[in-house]
């Protein structure tokens, strides 16, 4: 096994992005992702790459847009209120078919809320918080290793489809340290025959989402790409699902807790299992649907008031009861809390 190092999730993500070939990072301070910005401030210059602390989140996402236009692998990171400010820019990235990486280290909202961990930006991330028909590929790491790996891979996905990719995580994963093995592949960005480089020896190129009278065409092109992504990029992991009759569905921090809870209740003979989406868009609808026959219940666990549970319901379509357990406003359930929920379900009285 390669040497393991200990890093915070935020720093591991930053290092992953650098190894994934990130050319330009633009960001504005906000807790709980400041370690990521600081990491990039320290390390991007070492690699002769661009780091800018921008004047605002809006400037950052539009700098990302510009760098991407020019062919760079570019990224920004922020946390919930800052990501809300980026919604127009994200819609422009999607509308102009530009690859980019956006990181949301979620905190409690709405409003200023608190800097405590949360998963309450799920809808915003998966449904396009910006205007218009678009989607962002949304990766949801659950370990520091995945923070690192997903960041490195995100650029490949973004470039492959010319579509923005988001990493959706929270302050607990961002600020905890865990061992990880560093990515050691060579970043290999594809040629970008659409990028703006100056039109020497060729006809000019234009990057735009506005085409008088031809916006439906542009939309159709985007929709076709999204269908491809849905086919190819769904990622998830299952745990103890072979004989499970109760399936937990959870992502990120909540999924870790659920895994712990599955271990606990298995010890008591409860046949619980876990399906952990690693992408929440595209969402593992089919995988979930595939388990319906063997299940008595589905329990969705989220650190929000019930968001991903809609995707679970859309997957299950009434074939199995779908229950929800969530904590709001920055509270994080303990493993014991989840265990209790499972027990309640399996003994009949439900939450």
């Amino acid at each position, binding site marked *: 096994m390669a040497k393991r190092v200990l890093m915070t999730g935020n720093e591991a993500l930053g290092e992953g992005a650098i190894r994934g070939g990130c050319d330009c990072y*633009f960001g504005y301070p906000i807790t709980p992702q400041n370690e990521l910005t600081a990491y990039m401030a320290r390390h991007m210059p070492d690699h002769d790459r661009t780091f800018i602390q*921008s004047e605002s989140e809006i400037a950052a996402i539009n*700098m990302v847009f*510009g*760098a991407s236009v*020019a062919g760079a692998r570019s990224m920004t990171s922020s946390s919930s209120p800052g990501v809300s400010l980026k919604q127009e820019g994200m819609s*422009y990235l999607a509308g102009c078919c530009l690859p980019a990486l956006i990181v949301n280290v979620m905190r409690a909202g709405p409003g200023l809320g608190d800097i405590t961990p949360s998963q309450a930006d799920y809808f915003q991330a998966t449904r396009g918080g910006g205007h218009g028909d678009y989607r962002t590929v949304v990766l949801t790491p659950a370990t520091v290793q995945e923070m690192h790996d997903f960041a490195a891979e995100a650029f490949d996905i973004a470039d492959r489809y010319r579509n923005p990719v988001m990493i959706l995580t929270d302050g607990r994963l961002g600020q905890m340290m865990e061992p990880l093995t560093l990515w050691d592949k060579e970043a290999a960005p594809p040629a970008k025959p659409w990028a703006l480089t*100056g039109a020497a020896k060729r006809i000019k190129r*234009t990057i735009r989402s506005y085409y008088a009278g031809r916006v439906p065409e542009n939309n159709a092109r985007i929709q076709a790409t999204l269908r491809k992504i849905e086919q190819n990029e769904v990622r998830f992991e299952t745990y103890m699902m072979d004989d499970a009759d109760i399936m937990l569905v959870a992502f990120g921090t909540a999924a870790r807790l659920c895994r712990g809870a599955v271990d606990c209740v298995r010890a008591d003979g409860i046949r619980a299992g876990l399906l952990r989406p690693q992408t929440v868009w595209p969402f593992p609808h089919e995988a979930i649907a595939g388990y319906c026959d063997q299940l008595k219940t589905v329990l969705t666990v989220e650190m929000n008031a019930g968001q991903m549970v809609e995707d679970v319901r859309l997957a299950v379509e009434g074939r199995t009861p779908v229950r929800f357990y969530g904590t709001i406003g920055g509270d994080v359930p303990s493993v014991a809390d989840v265990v209790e929920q499972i027990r309640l379900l399996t003994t009949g009285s439900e939450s």
Partner: protein
Amino acid sequence: MSEIALYTRPQSLEDVSMHYCPGCGHGIVHKLIAELMDEMDLRDKTVAVAPVGCSVIAYEYWDVDCTEAAHGRAPAVATGIKRFRPDAFVLVYQGDGDLASIGIAETIYAANRGENFTTIFINNTIYGMTGGQMAPTTLPGQVTTTSPTGRDVATMGYPIRMCEIYDTLEAPSFIARTMLDSPGGIRKTKTLIRKAFEAQVAGQGFSVVEILSPCPTYMRMDPIQAMKHIKDKVSEYFPVKIFRDRTAE
């Protein structure tokens, strides 16, 4: 017998009719930019950023690589482009709503960082594209759809003078205001745009030319009156001058 061409349509201007209203300043400046691209041999390395405003489809008129930008954010987009491609010639074109209202933060910060690109700022004292609303630069008393009884400075504020704001910053290399008030003003404007371009080519950092420009449609005048209005009224509030010029240094 033979002919010497004294003026021909610039190569860098596409051979299509522009959608601007008759007498619009955008057309004049587009033409000047295209002439300078030809004269300074910039076409091949230019990456332009179009604003959201009447000139939103500037990319259909210049024969250069060009991108869209969200309303007001062209300077941030240009920053991303130029940092990744320092050898590109980066041209930002913005209207007064785009640059001085929604986008004032981005332009001030790009200027303050001394980003090495050139901003051409079309100040026509109005929001043209959306149908003639009050701009940050609308003159006191000027009637627009959102100042139907004339801009009242007591509640709507005064016209914003961007060059004066840029001039409080350390980094910009070239700051000038000029006007499209006559053929002479247009020639002068071209000279100043050339200087701004030269500043970028020499790597001197942020350069900007603010151009007082006619919008006959929403100034509610014919094109000839609009040009005279620029000189008589607009330039009275917005003094035409070179605020800073480090190209000589």
